[in-house]
């Protein structure tokens, strides 16, 4: 183990702190889109899935695991962002409503 771990741990702590700060200010009205938007972000694991499925010239078990992960993570990312957008499109203020 070298200093890399220390850097990664530092990043972890800062990101968790930032997450707490950002989310505690979100009003209850937006909790569902917040949750599905955050859920789409957790699909970031797609980056790892891409590296696993495209990482070798020969098809190995790792390729299969990665490929399955790409399918699942893509569903999570694409579906998550689109459904959040669809929901947020419904939230309108009174002025926006009367403009229609």
């Amino acid at each position, binding site marked *: 183990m070298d200093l*890399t*771990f220390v850097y*990664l741990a530092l*990043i*972890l702590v800062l*990101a*968790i702190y930032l*997450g*707490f700060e*950002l*989310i505690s200010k*979100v*009003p*209850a*009205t*937006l*909790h*569902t*889109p*917040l*949750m*599905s938007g*955050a*859920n*789409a*972000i*957790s*699909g*970031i694991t*797609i*980056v*790892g899935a*891409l*590296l696993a499925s*495209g990482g*070798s*010239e020969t098809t190995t078990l*790792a390729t299969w*695991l*990665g*490929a*399955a*992960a*790409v399918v*699942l*993570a*893509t*569903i*999570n*990312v*694409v579906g*998550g*962002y689109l459904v959040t957008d669809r*929901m947020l499109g*419904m*939230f*309108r*203020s*009174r002025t*926006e409503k009367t403009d229609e």
Partner: protein
Amino acid sequence: MLNLVAINAAYIVAAGLFIFGLKMLGHPESARRGNFLSAVGMLIAIVVTLLSEGILTWYWIAVCAVIGSVIGASAARLVAMTSMPEMVAVFNGFGGAASLLVAWAALFDSYGLFVAITVTLSVIIGGVTFAGSVIAWGKLSEVMTSRAIVFNGQRIVNTLLLLALLACAVMFCLEPSAQSPYLYGVIGLALILGIFVVIPIGGADMPVVISLLNSYSGLAACAAGFAINNIILIVAGSLVGAAGIILTNIMCKAMNRSLGNVLFSGFGAVKTAMKVEGEVKPISAGDAYLILEAANSVTFVPGYGMAVAQAQHVVCELGELLEAHGAEVSYAIHPVAGRMPGHMNVLLAEANVSYDQLVEMDDINPRLPSIDVAVVIGANDVVNPSARDDEGSPIYGMPIINVDDAKTVFVLKRSMASGFAGVDNPLFMGPNTRMLFGDAKASISEIISEFKP
């Protein structure tokens, strides 16, 4: 081919976009742009990864990404807003499962003890998230019973499962290999544990479970990030992990229960509450119309029953008619109303209620004494005065919307059954309460027809 510095620089940009995106999700006006920024961040992360030296073949990636995109996009387009909770549950589960697979695949490279430990963590969290989410989906979509499933010795079984899981995890870390039988043991036990953790949780506690699973899906990605030494997974994963924990905490507070209490105790077992006695005063839709027509201020208090009856559109229509009659209309929403955080808000937004009419519990309570009519639609425990007045009640201490303070309360209800917690509700016998029995959608439609001569 991009080098490592360029890739990590792009990852930092992506992380920044996630952070700004989440910040902008905090206000209805900027939320949609925030979600878009966050999606751009994701796109950047994906594109630079595809251009990195680590990618040697594109074939499987292209095939799988197309399959995933088609499934994800059609699910997102087709899902009904009432089904959002189970949709989010399923997506959480897929995220968890993907992280599990990514960590597993990392074992095919060379690695040391540290990676073995992070792989184990990722597999455990990912497995619990996946199996737990599948059960949560089953309960929410009523494929299986949404009641709490409890049996004798449940805690002992769960403890044994956890111990076996830890034992397998330690054995695997001592001699890590992708083909280790202990790895299969860890995966299997994590899945079983995920099932057992969620089955004893009843329908009304689902907001807590979904928030927690959301948090886990982030933490699983974060652990996978440590396993493959990737910064963007760690940052994005921990942001989501933190977001989920905050929501979980808000949900628990809104029920005045600790997380441990929600997860480990079958609810409603204690039955020492006061027996509620009194007379229920029913009202007809016609009489309800006369009172509503004369009211200057009306508050609707929706609960899960509104979603079940699909009554949100008629509720909004009635709200607009009342406004046209000069009444001030608001919608008071308890934090745990529905099956996921913010569930009612989304349904009402879909029915075209503007977000400045959606009022949180703490803001409506001081205003209720001056409100003429409070209309309770399919909500029960969140408006039960026992939570405030009766120390023996299982829900004592839970913050509620004090509808009994309003001058008149209408309760729309199918029949006189008690709420999820199995607690009697003295509100129904209150001196200013009138019960409007029947299907919520039909009852409201009847009132609306009175407005239209």
